[in-house]
């Protein structure tokens, strides 16, 4: 980042009286602003940006995180009998309801979770073990599960075990298949 280059050249010019006059140092400044980012080994400034030492130390000690704000999880979706599939980002949905609504729209038919019947298509998925399972049995993901539980104010250890075993839908889904309604 250009910060320390431009800062150190400017502030050092005001300490050392042999440095050029203000107008010249501002020219130096604009030149140094075009320097490309230096290597990560340069020494960090202790007085800029203006944050307190405790925050500075906390940030220094932090492991570098991959910026995961825009995580996405694209999976393939097939309609049974249709050779060409679609692709869908599951992270864009908040839960099963919005997923079903979106798929119904995408394929222009009604899709449900649950047992096969004559009228509706049923959504299934392939999990990380390669097995084909009914969509809707396990919690969508950890945090939304916890928040629904917390609204009812108490829950038991076995519920938590389900969470902590990470058998959350988003963790395990590999691809989706929409099955045809039953014929008989």
């Amino acid at each position: 980042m250009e910060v320390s280059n431009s800062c150190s050249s400017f502030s050092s010019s005001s300490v050392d009286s042999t440095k050029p006059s203000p107008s010249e140092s501002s020219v130096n400044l604009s030149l140094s602003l075009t320097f490309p980012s230096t290597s990560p080994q340069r020494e960090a400034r202790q007085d800029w940006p203006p944050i307190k030492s405790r925050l500075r130390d906390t940030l220094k000690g932090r492991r570098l995180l991959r910026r995961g704000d825009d995580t996405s999880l694209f999976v393939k979706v097939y309609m049974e009998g249709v050779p060409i599939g679609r692709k869908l980002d599951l992270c864009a949905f908040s839960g099963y309801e919005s997923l079903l609504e979106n798929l119904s729209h995408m394929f222009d038919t009604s899709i449900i979770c649950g047992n096969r019947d004559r009228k509706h298509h049923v959504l299934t998925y392939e999990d990380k073990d390669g097995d084909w399972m009914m969509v809707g049995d396990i919690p969508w993901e950890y945090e939304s599960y916890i928040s629904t539980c917390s609204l009812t104010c108490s829950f038991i250890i076995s519920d938590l075990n389900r969470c902590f075993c990470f058998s959350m839908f988003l963790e395990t889904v590999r691809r989706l298949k929409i099955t045809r309604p039953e014929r008989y």
Partner: protein
Amino acid sequence: MNYFPDEVIEHVFDFVVSHRDRNSISLVCKSWHKIERLSRKEVFIGNCYAINPERLIGRFPCLKSLTLKGKPHFADFNLVPHEWGGFVLPWIEALARSRVGLEELRLKRMVVTDESLELLSRSFANFKSLVLVSCEGFTTDGLASIAANCRQLRELDLQENEIDDHRGQWLNCFPDSCTTLISLNFACLKGETNVAALERLVARSPNLKSLKLNRAVPLDALARLMSCAPQLVDLGVGSYENEPDPESFAKLMTAIEKCMSLRSLSGFLEVAPLCLPAFYPICQNLISLNLSYAAEIQGNHLIKLIQLCKRLQRLWILDSIGDKGLAVVAATCKELQELRVFPSDVHGEEDNNAAVTEVGLVAISAGCPKLHSILYFCKQMTNAALIAVAKNCPNFIRFRLCILEPHKPDHITSQSLDEGFGAIVQACKGLRRLSVSGLLTDQVFLYIGMYAEQLEMLSIAFAGDTDKGMLYVLNGCKKMRKLEIRDSPFGNAALLADVGRYETMRSLWMSSCEVTLGGCKRLAQNSPRLNVEIINENENNRMEQNEEDEREKVDKLYLYRTVVGTRKDAPPYVRIL
């Protein structure tokens, strides 16, 4: 009013609480001055070198609560060397000698020693409350004396201090008879904590309303603490690096659910994200949330927590929340009054597209009608955004914007940000505190001088072109009390234009500017009521008068008004002219 007996007048004065109002009252006449000074219980001293302990006690012999501030604000950012000053010991010694009935001491940016704390703990039988903010110089031994000797202790609040942690047993020093604690904050302590002693202390403190833990208090201990103290209003959580096991998590969640009075949450140093959901049950009650130390939690986890906090009035957070997260805040937190967004990437190491930009700021201003205080660190800004913010939020009292790269212009038009900040000062008629950043010319200071009539504190860094900039501010902002400037091209002409002005202000700081030693000397010459301090850490052998070059630029200048002349406790590299 002069026909009323003094007791009646004194009773009326009891209703006047703010120190500024009481200062005004005391100027009305001699009689009021006397009644006021003998009845004043709380005294606020913004600069400990503006007055001395003897004169303080002489004027307010009945004081019970004293607030003292020491180092200038830029000391928070390592611009003031540690031994510069601000020692509290002489104050405590004087108060003890005069047998003042001290009950409360609040210190900010002062040097506090174990000796001072020991003396404090032994000298005032009714001592109830100690609040130390950004102080240094003491260890947990000092805390142990406070714990052991202050029988009436209600509040021990340590915020952001540099404390040498001897890993001792200071928590054990609270006697078993101590049951009066209302507030205990030791979040800034770095060492281990005797958790058992803490649990016993919390269990015997039925009035405990505020508890802020440090890193060392583990998850299961937190659950037990909260079970003992369901009446807590303010909680600072420690650090939980590992994902919890189901049983501890359930216990924690059960304990948290019972804390229906909880209104303020902070801490979360190194918290594994999966612990956060344990707090979901109480989010709807929260008024204040400080996640500025939660550096390990990604934006999406923060967003999920905040979405539940519909009553939030104060939010401190890291920029990892992103513009997307700020949009969620804007949509959810309609009661928001104060927002602080801190930078999470100070070394420019991360290729960071998720940090906040002007988009987030505009979203907040549009969504939160009650917003009046903001501190915002970001990598880019535009004039258009600032103009929109000014239009959305004319009620700002505090507006601090820090663009991380100095001199950075509007990233779309490449112009300076003069117009943007100009819009802010013009719209926000009640603005009392302002920090500016980015590429700024003298023009922005013209606007500030013209419009910022209520401005009391202004922070300038890497801004301006000529002395005119500083002059616009000094001439225009009549209510200015604290002016702090760094790395800006203001020099002697601006400094010397109106020397009398500085007696109407608390202090002026100028570092890495264009003022010279000669200019400072001329300033100090006819100003007996100003202390003009030159701080030159690098210059060890500069005391030779003959070799002095008056054209030499001054590294750091700090001047402040005072009625007690030059201080005697300055270190060798601080020269008081």
